[in-house]
């Protein structure tokens, strides 16, 4: 590395002149580049694909074949009931990964590098979250693929399934700002993981995901009725299996707005202030 210390000036291309201000177009380009970075990491870590797809597959198989008979008398009926629930649960759990990845970047000093570059301030956050949306989509596809394999034929058809996927991804997009906020606030990736998981469990199980709230004790049912995960799952069920859509969808959208309204500003502020 000593030989070419002055080759610096004979570079193939001089550093481009940087735009004096970050325009929205430039900011979008920066966000896209960092999304690319996030996606390269999926390819580099086969174990991550396993985590995103294999876990949901296990859930489908175990819930359908272990609980199905006992819950509804035949596993096919239970399968049709819980596929939307498992898709929602898997994606919601995957949002923890957003916070963990952000925290890891901070811990490794990679965020410092980005923040010391003359780029759009939002870009690292945007890139991380857009990359994660692709991860969430992968999870939904994995659940649906295995569901199809064990004979699931949603009456809502392709259109219903795609719409349901869109709804759960929208909710995940809102929820990942909460995860990002935690990732920026807490000290270690481990802490983010533990904190995230702790309340993902009541959130995803205390809902209509696996059991109809009508069959829960009244206090649990009351919790499930207001739980956003119930609204998301019910919307997906309506779209995939037929049934009421408008009311749960309206509630889902309210929750999406509330989550983004609270945690988007909190996360962006924490991101700016993180020492």
């Amino acid at each position, binding site marked *: 590395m000593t030989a070419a*210390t002055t080759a610096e000036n004979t570079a193939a291309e001089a550093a481009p002149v940087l735009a004096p201000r970050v325009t929205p177009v430039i900011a979008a380009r920066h966000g896209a580049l*960092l999304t690319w970075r996030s996606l390269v990491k999926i390819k580099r870590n086969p174990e991550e694909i396993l985590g995103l797809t294999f876990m949901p597959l296990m859930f489908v198989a175990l819930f359908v074949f272990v609980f199905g008979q006992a819950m509804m008398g035949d596993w096919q009926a239970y399968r049709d009931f819980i596929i939307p629930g498992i898709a929602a649960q898997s994606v919601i759990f995957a949002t923890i990964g957003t916070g963990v990845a952000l925290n890891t970047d901070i811990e*490794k000093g990679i965020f410092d590098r980005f923040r010391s570059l*003359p780029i759009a301030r939002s870009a690292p956050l945007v890139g991380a979250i857009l990359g994660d949306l692709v991860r969430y989509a992968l999870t939904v596809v994995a659940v649906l693929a295995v569901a199809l394999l064990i004979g699931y034929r949603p009456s809502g058809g392709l259109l219903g399934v795609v719409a349901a996927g869109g709804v759960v991804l929208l909710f995940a997009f809102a929820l990942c700002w909460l995860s990002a906020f935690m990732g920026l606030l807490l000290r270690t990736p481990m802490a983010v993981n533990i904190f995230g998981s702790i309340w993902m469990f009541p959130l995803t199980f205390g809902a209509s995901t696996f059991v109809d709230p009508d069959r829960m004790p009244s206090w649990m049912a009351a919790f499930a009725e207001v739980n956003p995960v119930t609204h998301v799952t019910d919307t997906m069920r309506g779209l995939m299996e037929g049934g009421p859509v408008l009311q749960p969808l309206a509630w889902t959208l309210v929750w999406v707005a509330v989550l983004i309204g609270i945690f988007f500003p909190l996360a962006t502020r924490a991101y700016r202030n993180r020492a």
Partner: protein
Amino acid sequence: MTDAIRAEGLVKRFKEQTALAGVDLTARKGAVLGVLGPNGSGKTTTVRILATLLRPDGGYAEVDGLDVVRNPHEVRRKIGLTGQYAAVDQDLSGTQNLVLIARLLGFSRRGARARAAELLARFSLTDAADRAAKTYSGGMRRRLDLAASLVGRPSLLYLDEPTTGLDPHSRNELWDVVRGLVDDGVTVLLTTQYLEEADQLADDIVVLDHGKVISRGTPDELKAQAGSQVLQVRPGDPGLLDRVGRIVEQVTGSEVRTSESSAGASVTDPAVLPEVVRRLDEAGVAIAELTLRKPSLDEVFLALTGHTAETADGAGAGAPTERTSA
């Protein structure tokens, strides 16, 4: 011509902990400013403020005449930062790491590839270009990190303890790189715990201790204060220590510090060594050990402050040379 960096009265507090208690420093354009200090003295905090990553609680700092708090974006266009811990994406290859940064800085796809290849070659990483950075050795990762901070051809480069943890060979290589950059006109702010490193590279040195500047000057001025070398004599018979101490004091003309078994003093002229040997011989003192070495950071601190370099967490500062209990 304005200075590359001007900082006045920088204060930074973390809860109860005062990391910086009013730091003033200037870096001349095209020169190397060495910031020397033990663990916890505030080196990283200073760099982070000057690199717009941290807002000071008091004081102000400018880079090329631009306020780091009010014009962070403009400042970022001029600086390159190599932090204390290599900040490369472990999952990306060497090429991908550099291309990503080049693209973020507005290079075309082809231009980015060319710049990446050029920097990888310069840092002897061409063979590892397409491997994930997590497979790199610590030294390779540091070089990639430095390469990453040079992508945009910064006119001001921050290096936070760039050689800590490197073997002597890699350390020398890195020193050569820094010299090469300076030849190209880059201003460098370098933090280090090693007096020798500051001596080798810096045109000016600022010594930090407990968030305050306790000394500043050229390496020569600093060494004149601390002595450029330390002479240590251990007589075969510990009972003769007092006599040894007097002889060392007479020859070197500087204050002698004695431990249980040896006497030591700062030396500015190495020619005193034969003189000490002759005098000890005349006095009939058998010498068990006699060393002439560079002063450790502890000794510099002792000379400058009257206390050893105590770190925030109570441990002594590491130094490349052997440490003595004075």
